[in-house]
């Protein structure tokens, strides 16, 4: 890439306008959401003050932050419990999703036979399945993992299957011409070709595994068996402890955002060498 020194070049008005616009857009991408966020928080604070809303209905942002600091021990230990379930279920979703996709890719027949079952699992609300899981599974962690896994594995399965099946026809012919075995074709052609699709699915699954973990805890929490963030929320709800409720909510959102950012970064690092979709940010 060549860097053009704008000052050394005498730009005509059109080009100068374009350069200015690009600079605004660069700043705007970060600056605008940040400004809106700050504005919203300030407005929130003002509404609380102007209307004299009691703390147990809507706490001021400062109070939420203070609670986050005060209850840090309680909240973060709960967050760790939730995170453990989230990451374990994400890992299992990757193993299960990719494993099933590879199995499906071995034969159209297998895919046609079993893909509908994956869809059934996906479209049935997890909250409705949980009572059954509760009956059949004893171990608390296993219960939660199973729930979060059911929610998270589908995008990985569906995307990876699509990726494995969308290999360039000529490349397939090339492998055939060179006498590639099934395993070689999978290892050197189909799996790498499916990588962008898989990473797209992973980004979705990352968020879903957190949602799955929290929802599972919620359902389990009503029977008083969970110690994750969701149970802290339920508890806080019973006690009308709105600040802690908000603090817990804030932690969950923050975790979700962080998971998304980390997965996006991983995806960018893996794809940047070869895939167009990773290049858009550079332009």
């Amino acid at each position: 890439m060549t860097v053009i020194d704008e000052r050394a070049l005498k730009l005509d008005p059109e080009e100068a306008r374009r350069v200015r616009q690009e600079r605004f857009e660069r700043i705007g991408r970060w600056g605008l959401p940040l400004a809106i966020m700050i504005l919203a928080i300030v407005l929130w604070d003002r509404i609380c003050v102007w209307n004299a809303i009691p703390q147990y209905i809507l706490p001021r942002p400062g109070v939420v932050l203070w609670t986050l600091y005060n209850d840090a021990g309680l909240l973060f230990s709960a967050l760790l419990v939730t995170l453990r379930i989230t990451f374990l279920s994400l890992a299992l979703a990757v193993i299960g999703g990719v494993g099933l996709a590879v199995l499906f890719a071995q034969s159209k027949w297998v895919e046609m036979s079993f893909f509908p079952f994956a869809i059934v699992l996906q479209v049935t609300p997890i909250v409705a399945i949980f009572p059954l899981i509760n009956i059949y599974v004893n171990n608390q962690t296993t219960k939660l993992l199973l729930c979060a896994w059911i929610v998270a594995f589908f995008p990985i399965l569906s995307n990876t299957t699509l990726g494995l099946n969308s290999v360039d026809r000529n490349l397939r012919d090339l492998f055939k011409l060179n006498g590639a075995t099934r395993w070689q074709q999978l290892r050197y052609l189909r799996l790498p070709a499916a990588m962008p699709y898989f990473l797209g699915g992973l980004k979705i699954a990352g968020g879903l595994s957190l949602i799955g973990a929290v929802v599972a805890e919620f359902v389990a929490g009503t029977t008083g068996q969970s110690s994750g963030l969701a149970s802290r929320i339920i508890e806080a709800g019973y006690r009308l402890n709105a600040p802690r409720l908000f603090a817990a909510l804030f932690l969950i959102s923050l975790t979700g955002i962080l998971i998304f950012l980390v997965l996006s970064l991983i995806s960018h690092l893996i794809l940047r060498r070869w895939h167009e979709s990773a290049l858009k940010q550079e332009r």
Partner: protein
Amino acid sequence: MMREQVAQAPTAAPALLSLRGVGKVFSNGVTALSDVDLTIREGDFLSLLGPSGCGKSTALRLIAGLSTPTSGVLDWRGGGSLDRANIGFVFQEPTLLPWASVFDNVWLPLRLKGISRARAAPAVKEMLARVHLTGFEDAVPRELSGGMKMRVSIARAMVTKPRVLLMDEPFAALDEITRFKLNNDLLELWQDERFTVVFVTHSVFESVFLSNRVVVMAARPGRVFDELAIEAAYPRDEAFRTSPDYAALCRQASDVLVNAINSTTGPHHDGH
């Protein structure tokens, strides 16, 4: 580099492959090829020239073994089929692995035969040098121009030292300057290595410049219409490209192609 001043494949060269009465009918009822008789001789640079739909690509796929004929036989050296390891194939698009470096792309055919990176390195490096890509080993395809990608594709096809190189309109998508350069380089490679080329093209000029034999095909049904021997001596260079001989040969081939297009029995005569 040693080069002969005569055409490389005199008519006396032994037959490498004979197509006898070869036909291909697709399941949708389209007759892609009908009753093709063609003998490819050792060391030929044979072009299949014809309008779209004349079955030239189908013929190439049959030769490659990627497809089987509905009727007729492909007779390799008077019996059996040639080991696929002895065939190199260059597609219309470069068809590279986008995630792999230039080196890894050229290594691929050897890798699939279980040859390690280290053991393949000399052959890969030599082949890259032959297509003038030394120093680009670590580049990935998206960093290369269209012409360079095609060079990688040719290096990949040639790294196994195949006896036959099949090329399916490899330079059709390139600009003229790049195409001329690749034409020259391909000829140089062919003269040094003495392999056999079957080259599918719809360009009269390209086929005449490269080949010692131009087989003109007609469409609906796809069939061999006529054959021209291009007896101009090799090496052919830029001087040949502007010579009156070349212009005369092109006119001759062009006339045959026009006749082939007009002979099409279907309702359309525009070659589309």
